[in-house]
């Protein structure tokens, strides 16, 4: 079996089966297929079925019609989708620019203490949502008063409100907590990209008199665009799959008044049931399918459109 490769292949007509390839490949293939790929396909299939008269039956796209159009479902679904889009937009407008800015500062040449800064700034990314969620819940709580006290230091106490408890500001507050936690990822990836820019490019720019801000905007930024593409798609997938933080901070009902409900929490409530609402497998699978299609669309857009165009900037 495995000794066959030792024999010199003089005539490559009939090669004995190389069993070791199967042995190496099989465990990963079995676990991955059985626990990940097949359930995913089965979930997509279940979205086309529903219980009719107590019997599972093929209903075509009827589940989707209910989800998008039925008065009982559509309101929650569109609410969750819009909230999810806002959630994503806030990440793209706050988390990623700050991450890029911090990376740019960290990569200033001959700066001392860089190792300390990046280690400290990456710490929140490692904490679980549960820890992060509760810590911020405590800090923003009007009972403890840490947040108003700190605003008072800079004379802005009047701005304080129980942000997590008001439906107008809760989604923004939760998004910012999530930004605080995940800023380390764009920061590190962009930092790595900035370090990998060849010295000669920077020197050439300096010879042409392009330094400081102009250098960042005109030379470095175009060169790190591929990394910005990667952090955008990572943010996209992460956001449209998020659940833990909102479940921890606002509960399964994503209050107040569902103002922080996103697709992940809607999926949990629908599939698993919550309080008086019974779990609904078919509708759960339908929501999971919609999430799958959204993520697939985003990833395809990235792989086939954005990444292809960016390739010419790479070295």
């Amino acid at each position, binding site marked *: 079996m495995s000794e066959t490769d030792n024999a010199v292949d003089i005539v490559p007509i009939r090669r004995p089966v*190389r069993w070791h390839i199967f042995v190496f490949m099989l465990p990963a293939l079995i676990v991955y297929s059985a626990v990940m790929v097949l359930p995913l396909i089965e979930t997509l299939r279940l979205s086309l079925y529903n219980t009719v008269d107590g019997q599972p039956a093929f209903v075509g796209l009827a589940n989707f019609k209910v989800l998008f159009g039925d008065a009982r479902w559509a309101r929650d679904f569109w609410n969750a989708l819009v909230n999810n889009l806002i959630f994503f937009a806030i990440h793209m407008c706050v988390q990623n620019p700050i991450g890029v800015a911090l990376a740019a500062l960290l990569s200033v040449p001959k700066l001392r203490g860089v190792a300390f800064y990046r280690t400290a700034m990456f*710490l929140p990314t490692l904490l679980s949502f*549960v820890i*992060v969620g509760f810590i911020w819940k405590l800090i923003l709580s009007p009972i403890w008063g840490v947040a108003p006290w700190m605003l008072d230091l800079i004379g802005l106490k009047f701005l304080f409100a129980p942000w997590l408890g008001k439906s107008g500001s809760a989604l923004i507050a939760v998004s910012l907590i999530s930004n605080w936690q995940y800023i380390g990822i764009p920061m590190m990836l962009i930092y790595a990209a900035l370090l990998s820019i060849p010295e000669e490019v920077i020197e050439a720019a300096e010879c042409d008199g392009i330094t400081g801000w102009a250098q960042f905007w005109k030379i470095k930024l175009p060169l790190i665009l591929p990394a910005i593409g990667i952090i955008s798609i990572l943010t996209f997938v992460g956001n449209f799959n998020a659940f833990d933080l909102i479940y921890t901070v606002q509960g399964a009902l994503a209050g107040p008044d569902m103002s922080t409900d996103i697709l992940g929490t809607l999926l949990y409530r629908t599939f698993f049931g919550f309080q008086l609402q019974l779990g609904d497998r078919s509708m759960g699978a339908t929501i999971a399918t919609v999430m799958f299609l959204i993520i697939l669309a985003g990833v395809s857009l990235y792989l086939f459109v954005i990444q292809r165009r960016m390739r010419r900037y790479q070295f």
Partner: protein
Amino acid sequence: MSKARTSPIRTGLVHLALSAYTLVALFPVFLTIVNSFKDRASIFREPLMIPTPSTFSLVGYQTVLGQGDFATYFQNSFIVTIVSILLVLLFGAMAAFALSEYRFRGNMLLGLYMAIGIMIPIRLGTVAILQGMVAAGLVNTLTALVLVYTAQGIPLAIFILSEFMRTVSDDLKNAGRIDGLSEYAIFFRLVLPLVRPAMATVAVFTMIPIWNDLWFPLILAPSEATKTVTLGSQIFIGQFVTNWNAVLAALSLAILPILVLYVIFSRQLIRGITSGAVK
């Protein structure tokens, strides 16, 4: 780099901005840990003070260790995380070796198939995963979690490890073949020791999402005996919302292992990220 650009004022401003954000990143964690060692009155009166002998109190930790079964939760989390990492590393490395070492029909396709899991989250299959676990009688067992996390970790492990395995010299492997080593011996005795740094990177990347996951413990293993730390502290804190000492102590206990591991592994982790492992 030219010296003209590094004026002391500019450097000072850069340090100011970076320290300001470092403060933002560390302050909430600091606040939680510091206050977990104080008595109730001073948590509210002087939240920012370091505990003094007169305000020092361990009442929160006493409540947590007395009421919550945190020893079991930690044990569950350790078992699930360690077994999953070992399986991900072993299966991932084997598959990466098969894909990067041998040319066979369908190699490319198999590689693409395994790569789907890097981008598509396993969570989306939850409905059918739960159904399957119910059918297999694995609900409320740690095995269910280990299986899910192993499947979740394998794609990225294969991706990173096969990049590294391509750099192992062919001469070395062929020398081994001439000496009569089997393909298995070549993998376990020659290749695995050489990709150890990459294995460490994969281990760290695999560990964080497993340790922190709330979704699968909540759905697949919510029973008292199989709760992980993340789920356990979530439920514990939910029950003790008004007991601030207990909440802060539970949070500190949950932060502690991560903090310790981070201090030990931060070099490895940051080098892993910046060396382009996630590209």
